[in-house]
C-alpha cells in the first residue's frame, strides 16, 4: 500500500508540524520567532483539514474552504502581529518577551 495514500501519514505529518510549532514557541527568544512558530501550528491544522477532506469527508469542498479560511486568518494575523511588534520595538527598543512587563503602550 502506498504510504502517500494513507490518512494516518498526513495526520502524523500534521502532528509533527504542531509539535515543531510548540517547540519553537516555547524556545524562541524573540517575538518574531514566536510568530514564525505560530505559522507552523496553523499549517498543521490546515493540513489536517485537507487530509480529512480527502479521505473522510463526504463533501470535498468543505476542507478546501476551511484551509483557505485558515490562510486568510494567518495573513491577517501576521500583518497585525508584525505591526504590534514594530510598535513594541519603538517603545521598548527590544524584542525580548521577558522585558515586556506592562501592558500600557
Amino acid at each position, binding site marked *: 500500500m502506498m504510504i502517500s495514500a494513507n490518512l494516518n501519514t498526513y495526520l502524523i505529518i500534521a502532528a509533527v508540524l504542531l509539535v515543531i510549532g510548540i*517547540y519553537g514557541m516555547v524556545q524562541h527568544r524573540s517575538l518574531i520567532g514566536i510568530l514564525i512558530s505560530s505559522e507552523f501550528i496553523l499549517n498543521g491544522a490546515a493540513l489536517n483539514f485537507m487530509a480529512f477532506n480527502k479521505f473522510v469527508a*463526504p463533501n470535498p469542498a468543505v476542507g478546501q474552504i*476551511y484551509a483557505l479560511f485558515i490562510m486568510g486568518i494567518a495573513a491577517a494575523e501576521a500583518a497585525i502581529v508584525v505591526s504590534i511588534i514594530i510598535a513594541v520595538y519603538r517603545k521598548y527598543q527590544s524584542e525580548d518577551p521577558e522585558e515586556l512587563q506592562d501592558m500600557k503602550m
Partner: protein
Amino acid sequence: MIVYKYLAEVLFYALVCLTFAGGIMAVRSKMLMHAVLGLAATLFGVAGLYFHLGSPFLAMMQILIYVGAVCIIIVLGVMLGNTPDQLASKNLTGRNLPLALLACTTGFISLFVATISRTEFTSATEKVGDMSIEFVGESLLLQYCLAFELISVILLTAIIGAIILARGGREEKTS
C-alpha cells in the same frame, strides 16, 4: 503508468523531508532570517502535500499567500526591529530548552498513541461533488457564503488595525 506512481511516491518523501527540514531550520537557527527561510521551505513542502491530496488550487494559494505574502511581511518585521546578538545566541541554549523538549515530546506521544493510532476513520459512503475549482468556488459563494464574507471582514479589520498600530508611534515621536 506504474512508474509515475512510484515517482509520485518518491516526490512525496522528498516533500515530507523538505517540510521537516524547514521546520527544524526554523526553530533551531540563530538568525531570524534563516528561520524565515526555513518557514518558506516548510510552506513549499506543505503546498506539495496539498497537491498530493488532490487540490492544486490550494497548493497555488499556499505559495501565493503564505510564501508570497506572509513570509515577506515577516521579513519586513525582521528588518525593521533588530534582535541583538546576545538574545539570538540564547535561542539555542536558553533555560526553556528542557521545557520545550518536554512539551513537544509529550504532545506528540499523546497525539500519536492516544489518538491517531487508535482511531478508525471510516470514509464517507457517497461523495457529493469533486475537488475541482468550479465546485469549490460555487460552494464558497452559495453554500458557505458566510466563510467568504467573514474572511473579507477579518482582512479589512486586519488592514485597518495594522495601519493604526504601526502609525500610532510615529505621530507621538514627531509631536
